[in-house]
């Protein structure tokens, strides 16, 4: 009974402390204090994020606790830090929205839920036991349903929440079914134990393993919105408040991707070529292609970004399929860049939505004439998402392709080629947004000139700085490579 093992979970514990502070101040603070809760959370979370970069937290080696149930390593700290940065931006960007008339009463809960889901994601990534993982997963997705429903006055918000929770529970049922098969095959839920007996399991009952794997992948694919498990994504992104959508699209997705990587490599690494390599090929191709095809027609920008994020998820998966350390770094870097790019886009969308409630692409016609800075930010985000140099997205795409091809088979070349051809389609729809803003003439529906709130601007500035700097400054990627031991 060595309770000191909890001390290994520095980030989780400090996050919970942070949560408690927020929770307590929300519950017991006066009305005046209530107003500062957003700022307080941001400041605290900023400190917490910085804390993550402390050498004490990072350490230099892998630490396991609870007899292998929990693990932290520089790479895991790094991905958590990446997510923290993203969450910080989300928090800053959401300040205006949470202070709005309809939300002000619930904003404390917004921050609390956000922190708790983040805690869940930490568990997903750090847990090395399926029970911990499942709890983390649920903790990361169930409160999100409540957050999706935050816009009480909008029916879409409720619809989205209902859709989200029903499919989430369904997918977790399927996931659990898969896990039960895995358990049946290997007799344990510890990642390490499963991996140990994976080889014999694969020889004794490959079909069961494959089916179990399919179920498990689907459960994670749901979080990551891989096709065909993605169908909830667009509706939920559209219906949810923009801050929640941005959180869903980057943080939740990023953590799921990393957890996916951990599970596939650590648990099923032995049966890579036997079982899941081809499954992933199929999923990646489907995800990228179908995501792109849907994105082409979207008029609602949030929905549009939902499909774009689906296809981005496909690219993220390319980091996994390489099955090497470079892929892990590339995946983390991709997530990092994706966070900045996508949050820049959501920042603009959110700012405009908060200001005049417009989210349709046609409302953006001639935006450059009325709000040049927003338009430029949006354009940078789109270019970065599309992978245009010198913006960060180019580098992340390039590295993820490079890491995938490192695997070396001809099939991977074909896969990457398909992915690359898909980038053309994606470029097309990203350019549609740029076209609307820069080329089309403004009309009576165009967003009128306005000045966005300071916090929103800070958020966007940070994102723009990230989009411009993350790729060109090699330190980021190099240090990611070093933490994964490449």
């Amino acid at each position: 009974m060595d309770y000191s093992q909890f001390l290994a979970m520095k980030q989780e514990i400090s996050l919970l402390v942070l949560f408690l502070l927020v929770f307590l101040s929300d519950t017991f603070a006066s009305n005046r204090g209530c107003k500062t809760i957003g700022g307080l959370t941001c400041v605290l979370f900023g400190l917490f994020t910085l804390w993550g970069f402390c050498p004490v937290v990072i350490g230099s080696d892998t630490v396991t606790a609870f007899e292998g149930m929990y693990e932290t390593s520089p790479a895991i700290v790094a991905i958590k830090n990446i997510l923290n940065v993203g969450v910080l931006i989300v928090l800053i960007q959401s300040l205006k929205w949470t202070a709005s008339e309809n939300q002000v009463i619930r904003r404390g809960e917004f921050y609390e839920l956000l922190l708790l889901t983040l805690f869940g994601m930490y568990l997903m990534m750090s847990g090395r036991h399926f029970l911990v993982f499942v709890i983390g997963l649920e903790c990361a997705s169930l409160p999100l349903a409540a957050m999706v429903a935050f816009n009480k006055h909008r029916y879409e918000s409720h619809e989205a929440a209902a859709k989200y929770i029903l499919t989430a529970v369904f997918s977790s049922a399927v996931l659990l079914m898969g896990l039960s098969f895995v358990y049946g095959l290997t007799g344990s839920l510890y990642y390490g134990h499963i991996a140990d007996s994976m080889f014999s399991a694969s020889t004794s009952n490959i079909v069961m393993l494959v089916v179990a794997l399919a179920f498990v992948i689907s459960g994670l694919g749901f979080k990551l919105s891989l096709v065909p498990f993605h169908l909830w994504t667009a509706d939920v992104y559209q219906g949810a408040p923009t801050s929640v959508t941005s959180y869903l699209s980057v943080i939740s997705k990023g953590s799921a991707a990393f957890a996916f990587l951990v599970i596939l490599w650590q648990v099923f690494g032995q049966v890579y070529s036997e079982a899941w390599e081809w499954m992933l090929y199929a999923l990646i191709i489907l995800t990228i292609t179908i995501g792109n095809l849907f994105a082409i027609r979207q008029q609602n920008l949030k929905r549009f970004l939902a499909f774009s994020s689906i296809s981005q998820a496909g690219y993220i998966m390319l980091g996994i399929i390489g099955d090497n350390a470079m892929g892990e770094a590339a995946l983390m870097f991709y997530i990092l860049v994706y966070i900045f790019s996508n949050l820049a886009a959501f920042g603009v969308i959110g700012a405009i939505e908060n200001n005049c409630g417009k989210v349709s692409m046609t409302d953006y016609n001639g935006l450059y004439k009325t709000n040049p800075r927003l338009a430029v930010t949006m354009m940078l985000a789109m270019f970065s998402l599309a992978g245009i140099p010198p913006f960060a997205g180019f580098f992340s795409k390039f590295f993820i392709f490079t890491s995938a091809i490192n695997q070396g088979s001809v099939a991977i070349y074909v896969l990457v080629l398909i992915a690359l051809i898909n980038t053309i389609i994606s470029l097309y729809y990203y350019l549609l947004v740029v076209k609307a803003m820069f080329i089309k003439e403004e009309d009576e529906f165009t967003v009128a000139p306005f000045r966005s709130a300071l916090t929103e601007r800070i958020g966007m500035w940070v994102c723009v700085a990230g989009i411009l700097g993350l790729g060109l400054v090699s330190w980021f990627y190099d240090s990611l490579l070093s933490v994964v031991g490449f």
Partner: protein
Amino acid sequence: MESVGSIIMYLVIALSIILFSVLTVTTRKILRSATFLLFTLFATAALYFKLDYEFLGAVQIAVYAGGIVVLFVFSIFLTTHPGDSSEKLVSKKKVLGVFAALLTFAVAAFALLYRCGMALTKLPEMENPKMHEIGTALMGTGEYQYLLPFEAISVLLLACIIGGVVVARKR
């Protein structure tokens, strides 16, 4: 070779699980559906008992049957208008549902039965887990001990509570 009583008991449990499951999803009235769910859960609990997991059976009854089903019933009362108690299934949906269910069954059965070795395992001897052991395992930090999940799920429950409150709050 098991005892006849055991077999009969198994048959009762298994058949009631199957029967009530089917009834749960086929009955038209939502309240009946909840009732059949309750029966299914009871049967499941019985199965746990039969497999010597008495604590688990108790929890099943307490939490599932006692908590969740009640929750269902309340919510049914909250959301149902007197008039629309029954629903009619669209046949297209039915076909899709049957297809999906059968396919699921087929795939899962294929997975379980292919190279049938595992499927023929007989019930091994096992001592009933003592409450003491269960408690220790729940509070311990060693291997096969579950303090971390225990703490984690408390966070999860807290999160769900907060979420529930937010969602349920009127404004």
